[in-house]
């Protein structure tokens, strides 16, 4: 039995930033309304109703929004009745919600599924309920220190320099200038990045993304419509970690020396490419997890865009424009947009849809036909999705 195709009929975004006057419900509602309006604009004028009116199910991704967060959004616009499921999977919450929604369409159970995510992040260093209180008291929980250890490993084993880490920020912030939904829209220099406060060596403040607020929504459907360039969700895969590595995003207190199991990102990427019957060479643009500058390089390695250990060379080649096969984080990434956990993975999908419809304005990647989105975070969870234009 062949699986049903999954199309992305409508997308919507609330800008990422700080919005003290708005509740998280209002942020989510903004994105959902935008996605429904986008789908309606793409529907045949005299044809069937836009999928927003005929929802079979909805998934809401969020980490900090409390009980029934998705229900509160959809109650505002009379979209209740169908199942509404609230999903938490750390940074990959949106990817988890997307893969669930897509699988229900692939299997033939549903025809129209709304997937949205939203967040109002607490300010400052992210406090997680993940660790027991004694770990916090003992000083074992600072997220930037875990990021820094991964970056230290890149320095030791992948030829990455502090300048390379700064150049990742320069690269992403340059792209973010053209993204009206990003929080930071100013170019920065390598020197400025290295002069920002040292948080956890080798990571300076500007090498870390800012936890913030925002929302994103995606309407999935088993049918395409004539109004927009059809974009198919060719694959969406969620994976968790295998035990053994002390450096994984599952942040264990111990691992085993020499035990380096395949990362959940690598597994998810391989399975997504197989699901979409594609190879990495088919991919024109990639939105990948850049929680910090080191994570971007690690994501490049784990996705297979370069060999493990070649991350430093890859970044330098990209910086010198000597290698431009794949556009990395054309949206500006989390380093430009900031990171509202529940919304960030779905915002990557929104960006890819705009790119594949050739409607991304000044940041358009010319001729983009296939895009890959990647998130990884607490759990550990990693999601990889692939979108193709028809």
């Amino acid at each position: 039995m062949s699986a049903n195709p999954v199309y992305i009929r409508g997308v919507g975004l609330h800008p990422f930033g700080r919005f003290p006057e708005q509740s998280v419900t209002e942020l989510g509602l903004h994105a959902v309304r935008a996605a429904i309006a986008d789908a309606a604009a793409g529907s045949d004028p005299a044809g069937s109703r836009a999928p927003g009116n005929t929802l079979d199910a909805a998934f809401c991704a969020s980490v900090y929004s409390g009980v029934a967060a998705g229900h509160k959004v959809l109650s505002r616009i009379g979209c209740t009745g169908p199942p509404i499921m609230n999903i938490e999977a750390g940074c990959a919450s949106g990817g988890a919600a997307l893969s669930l929604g897509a699988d229900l369409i692939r299997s033939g159970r549903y025809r129209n599924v709304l997937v949205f995510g939203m967040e109002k992040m607490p300010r400052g260093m992210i406090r997680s309920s993940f660790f027991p209180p004694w770990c916090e008291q003992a000083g074992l929980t600072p997220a930037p220190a875990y990021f820094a250890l991964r970056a230290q490993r890149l320095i030791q084993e992948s030829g990455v320099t502090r300048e390379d880490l700064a150049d990742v920020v320069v690269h992403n912030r340059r792209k973010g200038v053209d993204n009206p939904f990003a929080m930071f829209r100013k170019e920065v220099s390598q020197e400025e990045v290295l002069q920002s406060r040292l948080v956890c060596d080798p990571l300076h403040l500007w090498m870390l993304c800012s936890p913030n607020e925002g929302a994103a929504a995606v309407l999935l459907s088993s049918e395409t419509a004539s109004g927009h360039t059809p974009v198919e969700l060719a694959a969406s895969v969620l994976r968790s970690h295998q035990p053994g590595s002390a450096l994984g995003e599952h942040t264990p207190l111990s691992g085993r020396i020499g035990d380096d199991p395949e990362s959940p990102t690598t597994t998810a990427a391989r399975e997504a490419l197989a699901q979409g019957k594609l190879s990495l060479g088919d991919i024109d643009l990639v939105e990948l997890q850049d929680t910090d500058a080191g994570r971007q390089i690690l994501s490049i390695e784990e996705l297979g865009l370069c060999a493990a250990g070649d991350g430093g060379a890859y970044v330098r080649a990209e910086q010198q424009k000597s290698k431009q096969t794949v556009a990395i984080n054309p949206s500006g990434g989390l380093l430009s947009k900031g990171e509202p956990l529940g919304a960030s993975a779905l915002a990557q999908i929104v960006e890819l849809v705009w790119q594949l419809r050739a409607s991304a304005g000044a940041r358009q990647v010319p001729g983009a036909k296939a895009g890959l989105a990647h998130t990884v975070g607490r759990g550990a969870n990693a999601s990889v999705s692939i979108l193709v234009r028809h």
Partner: protein
Amino acid sequence: MGTRAQNWYPEDVQSRPIHEGLFSSPGDPGGLGLYAGYCWSCKALHFPATDDCPYCGATGCETRIVGKTASLYLGTVVTAAPPGYHGEVPYGFGLVDLPEGLRVISVIAETDVKQLRPGLPLRLGLRTLPCPEPEQAEGEALTLASWHYEPAAESP
């Protein structure tokens, strides 16, 4: 320098381990060590010790004392106190390799990042931390004892 290791349960200061089952007391017959769990089924060690093996799911893991010495795998320095932490900043932080094959997250008693080179020889010690306020009000322990690794001045 960050905080220094102190004697276990010194008579003038009420102290208790930050959490039960993490490490033995220097006064124990075997001396100070981390409690790791050893799985008889898959032979893997894990820390902190739990009855269940996080690698294969077998139960009945044996507690073993490990990590009296270590060498640094990767290190950094934390410059701002994370939520819930009331000890000194800055403090060293890293992954340390134990001779028993475990790689453990730990506070490192060294705040000069230039000293935190891979391979740095380390030895296990204890540090004291302020107790959360509610416990103080109840007249319970005044300080908490946690483990850290200190640079070993010379190789034994």
